[in-house]
């Protein structure tokens, strides 16, 4: 049976972008406001799962060009390397620092190395969540 799901698909195309942008906002806001890598990653994954529900898993796999397990591994690698990066500056493992930079468009911005660690967490959460959902979803 073919159902007509034009409304669902059109709405999803719009909503997915809003969710992803909001998830990136939450991810970046984590240092001073509620948010961070974990919740940001979950929201991004939720956006992809919505796409998967409205279209199908194959479409979502086409959007994400690399293997999800590799995304998890890259996230882990980033998180570990930001910890090891402290060795270069003769500091302890996982030491973090921050500074103020003059960025184009944004002006004076506080940038912390904790953000790099959070990118790792963000990628791991996306990778793990989508791997779980897609592995279950593919089983017939």
């Amino acid at each position: 049976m073919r159902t007509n799901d034009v409304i669902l698909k059109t709405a999803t195309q719009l909503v997915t972008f809003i969710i992803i942008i909001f998830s990136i906002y939450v991810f970046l806001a984590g240092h001073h406001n509620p948010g961070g890598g974990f919740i940001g990653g979950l929201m991004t994954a939720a956006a992809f799962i919505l796409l998967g529900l409205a279209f199908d898993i194959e479409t979502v796999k086409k959007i994400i060009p690399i293997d999800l397990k590799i995304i998890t591994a890259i996230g882990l690698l980033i998180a570990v390397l930001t910890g090891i990066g402290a060795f270069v500056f003769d500091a302890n493992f996982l030491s973090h620092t921050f500074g103020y930079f003059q960025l184009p468009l944004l002006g004076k911005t506080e940038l912390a190395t904790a953000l790099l660690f959070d990118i790792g967490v963000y990628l791991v959460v996306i990778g793990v969540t989508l791997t779980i959902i897609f592995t279950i979803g593919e089983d017939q």
Partner: protein
Amino acid sequence: MNNLIILPLLIPLLTGVILLFLGKKIILQKTLSILSGIAIIITSILLLMDVNSNGVQAYFLGGWLPPFGIALVADSFAILLVIFASIILVATTLFTFKGLDLERKNYYYYPLVQFLLTGVIGAFLTGDLFNLFVFFEVLLMSSYALIVLGGTKTQLRESIKYVLVNVISSALFVTAVAFLYSVTGTLNMADLSARIAEINQPGLVTVIALLFLIVFGMKAAIFPLYFWLPGAYSAPPPVISAIFAGLLTKVGIYAIYRVFTIIFYHQPEVTHYTIGVLAAITMIIGAIGAIAYNDIHKILVYNVVAGVGFILLGLSSFNSDGIFGGVFYLLHDMIIKAALFLLAGAIVVVTRTTKIGQASGIMKSYPLLGWSFLAAALSLAGVPPFSGFFGKLLLIQGGFLAEQYVFVGILLLSSLLVLYSVMRIFFLMILGEEKLPEPHQRGNVKGLVYPSIFLLALSFLMGMGAEVIYPFVADAASTLLNPESYIEAVLKE
């Protein structure tokens, strides 16, 4: 700052992550796994030298001083265990060359083992109770995946039990940590020790201590909480059982030793006596189980349970001989249990059965395998040239000094039964008339025996060259008995 302390933890973590990228390149994965094991051994030996000359070392993650940040503490006890854990990693990885099917190797066996080792080493090195919980979870998650890897029916059934038991004990762990935090307001072990010494361990804290005994006892498989172990350890393939028998219960024992020597040591007549009673019953149950079965996996699994009892008896006597013996026996037990499980794997490859009655006479065609099993059996029972003797002797001495004559009697009796249980395998399965499957049905044991011979040689060296390892073990025991040096190293600034 001395970054050496974090390296044994970082090497397996980083190797595990890199192995995830390698997917199906098995040879590269094997090589990297072995290199990682060797690198951990080298860095830990350097660290051990450092600790032996300069005292206990502490490392503060992110540069935050305790009690606010997480501290890693390296004392001789922890580092010795790290070294032996990575030796087991190297030996089992060598075994996988021939002893594990391609199916399992292709599905992330090597990264999982590296993550398991990360959890084990982290649990040994951490100086913070909640961080200990996190590392417990790291090693448990990896062990869940390893136990079910391959997906046979028994593995699926046993993994459900195993996961269920460990989820419950982890929840209890968090509850116990919450109770302790609400009483003391800190989670750093050194700080906890200082604060509990101030309030002199009131009844409430002793109750929390016993809750911790239940939590760690579930991981270490002591008497009423061992029920999950026989099934869970005999389900997966021999390499994975060897890793489990060598590492997992030992982490629980380590946690009991750590917590009851550094934090809860003010009421030994309650806590340590309870440990002694439970250890004695554990030894009895282990020995009964070991002689009751005709299945080599079951016999070895109950030997693991009995071994837990032997080691904890040292903590119960709580004097320098007992603790010394406990630490020495713990190290011996790690390598010898791994060696026995690997040998059992090789025996099953030859006989195609785990039942004692159904095959015999391995010695005629496979003398190397037969003699190594005899050596492992003698070492397990504690016959002089091997490492088991020295540890048991000290345990008995410690028991006599603490006037725990009944416990010592049980220890001697169950040692005898343990010897009987493994010698039964030797006499009935390895000696005797040759009754084996046709040669073309037997697997190839070339390369399967060498990893165990490597471990047995180590056990032999530990027994013969006890005076080489003596100062390190003595240092470990003295740190356990005098927590001041530990506390001072962490809270010095």
